[in-house]
């Protein structure tokens, strides 16, 4: 196989994700594994590239929530096939503890974020909805998470998110985790105000935010 055809396969894989063609994506993934192509790169540029494109389409309104869900499914199934061709066990990109803040029981958006983070190669512990500040912190410690991701849909429960950060500070654990926030009423300003580490506007942005954050973290660790 020449470099060019490998690249072509990745592009086709990426397009299959954008086209929401699960069968085609799985077929290409299988060919990539059989031919001993670079599966790690296929996950990163093929599937990852496809998801980035889907994110753009979502932001312009071309794609909608059901499209996101099908794309995430497509990525997950193809990734499962590609992982069988990896030389070593895939390294998790990072560990994320996530949930809807206490006082709020809306979780559809949060679930989509979890699905996307998972598809992008993160280990996700979803604590569900109406999650107390203590549970966020305790589970993050227990699970040795890198990231705590907190969501809310309601204006009335936004301020509850700050309690997670306050608790981390009180328990002297603020530096152990990066705290990401999101949800309909949340803005960049709000995130800055409560001293969160980052804000994402949608599931695809959340993946990008975590990728940037984690790579910075790892660089500092080295």
């Amino acid at each position, binding site marked *: 196989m020449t470099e060019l055809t490998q690249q072509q396969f990745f592009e086709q894989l990426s397009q299959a994700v954008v086209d929401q063609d699960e069968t085609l994506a799985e077929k290409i993934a299988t060919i990539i594994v059989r031919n001993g192509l670079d599966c790690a790169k296929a996950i990163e540029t093929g599937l990852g590239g496809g998801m980035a494109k889907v994110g753009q389409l979502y932001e312009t309104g071309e794609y909608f929530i059901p499209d996101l869900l099908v794309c995430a499914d497509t990525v997950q199934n193809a990734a499962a096939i590609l992982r069988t061709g990896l030389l070593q066990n895939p390294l998790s990109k990072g560990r994320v503890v996530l949930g809807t803040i206490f006082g709020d*029981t809306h979780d559809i958006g949060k679930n989509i974020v979890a699905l996307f983070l998972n598809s992008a190669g993160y280990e996700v512990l979803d604590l569900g909805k109406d999650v107390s500040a203590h549970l966020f912190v305790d589970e993050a410690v227990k699970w040795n998470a890198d990231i705590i991701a907190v969501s809310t849909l309601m204006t009335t429960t*936004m301020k509850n998110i700050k309690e997670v950060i306050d608790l981390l500070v009180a328990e002297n654990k603020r530096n152990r985790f990066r705290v990401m926030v999101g949800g309909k009423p949340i*803005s960049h300003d709000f995130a800055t105000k409560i001293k969160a580490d980052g804000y994402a506007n949608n599931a695809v942005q959340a993946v990008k935010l975590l990728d940037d954050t984690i790579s910075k973290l790892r660089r500092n660790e080295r």
Partner: protein
Amino acid sequence: MPEIIFANEQKTLSVTNGTTVLEAARQLGIVLETPCNGMGTCGKCKIKIGSDYFLACQKNITENITVFTENKENENKTLQILSGGQSCSCQLKPFISKQFDGEKTVVYGGNSALGTESGDTSKSCYGITVDIGTTTLVVAIINLSSGKEIVSESRLNPQSTYAQDVLSRIHFASNHEGLNVLQNVLIDALNEMIGTLSEKAKISTKNIYEIVYSGNTAMLHLACGIDPKPLGQYPYLSQIHGGEYFTALKLNISPFGVIYLPPIISAFVGADITSGILASQLYEQKETILFIDIGTNGEMVLAKNGALAATSTAAGPAFEGMNITCGMRAGNGAVERFCINNDGSIDYQVIGGTRATGICGSGLLDITGELVRQGIIGKSGRFTSQKTIDGLREKDGKKVFFVTDDVYLTQNDVRQIQLAKGAVRSGIESLLMKMNLKKEEVNRIEIAGSFGYHLNEKSLLSIGLLPPEFEGKVTFVGNTAQSGGTAFLLNVDFRTKMLNVASEIQKIELANNENFEKIFVASLGF
């Protein structure tokens, strides 16, 4: 400190450096539309400084400026708010009664005397119904001796100046000061309306003895000055249950007047729906009936042989034309009807017969419904490339449907409509499931709410807000919060009756339904 001048309103304010124009406007009581609550996304708070346009919520005041706002002064005059609705016939037996004893007139509330008036005033006995909506207020004066409505008036709820949607309003009122502000602006508006209405009806406000507050649960908390905070936090508990009386001291009616609050069903299904159930007599019908108030909260009640289940869905403000690029309320200039003819030409109707300046809720549903029916918008909600039509053109590189050169519908607008109708549809599906009913078993669909009255069945079916099985079964019953409120006013027996009905309603919290996410996602498509 820099100074800001609002030229149209002729008001000036000195502010600390960096204050936004919106904050200054709010301090001066100047109304600017802020459906996105000052996030800078909806573009409705546009103002003009010099020859440039800015968003009031994003523009910081750092020097002396003069600001021109869009003149909304006439909006209350042209706004279409429906005040009447379907009602039930009832025997005249009001809570308030009067008796002249030859010297003075005693006013009774039920069996107890509320007060006395000198001379014979027994012929002058009036009550008021108030529908406190998140967006609109409707006030009507009812003659308690004849049962007739004499006059009514509607206007925008002044609380929306401070916080547009229900949740932001709960948030705003979650401290004592905020709650006071919201209660007071409402009371002021009600007193103003009561004043003009009684003048128009040529009656004395002293002869008004009872006010029935219909409205959603959050609005009733605010109206009664009760902390609404628990409504905005799981488990979403109402602090008041209705079926109770408050003094009306702050309201400009008889000094011994009372306020009656109809039974409240839950935190998100309020007394307005109880009034609706009463007006439609849902608890007595042998048929299977679905009653929906299509609005920001999308409350609905399913009745099966008198057994009732209720829920509410977070439809958001799209149906009111908010968060929509060219969206506006149903006032002059709004496209309210739209259709595509067989030859591909379009017809539309503008409120007030003027040039089209925007699209209101009913217009939005018509346009979307017609584009779906013609296959211009596909099942997923995307503008398709297979079919084309006059008006479908590119704007800034994106496909947009132009109704006129200035008024159009974007792809993102269609997404907002999908979210709103998906919320209502998934509520319907969940209720049917809960009561083990098939769609075809529903005999009648009653659409309530002043907004609902302007919709047409075809559009509701085309966009899938209602399933196809409901075709031909839809009736529009109008503002039943108002007509049901009148029934409460005119016959006191309904008060005990509805207390029982409300307590027996099965309350469904959609967020607790494990399948809700699947149902919601499936309901988004067309």
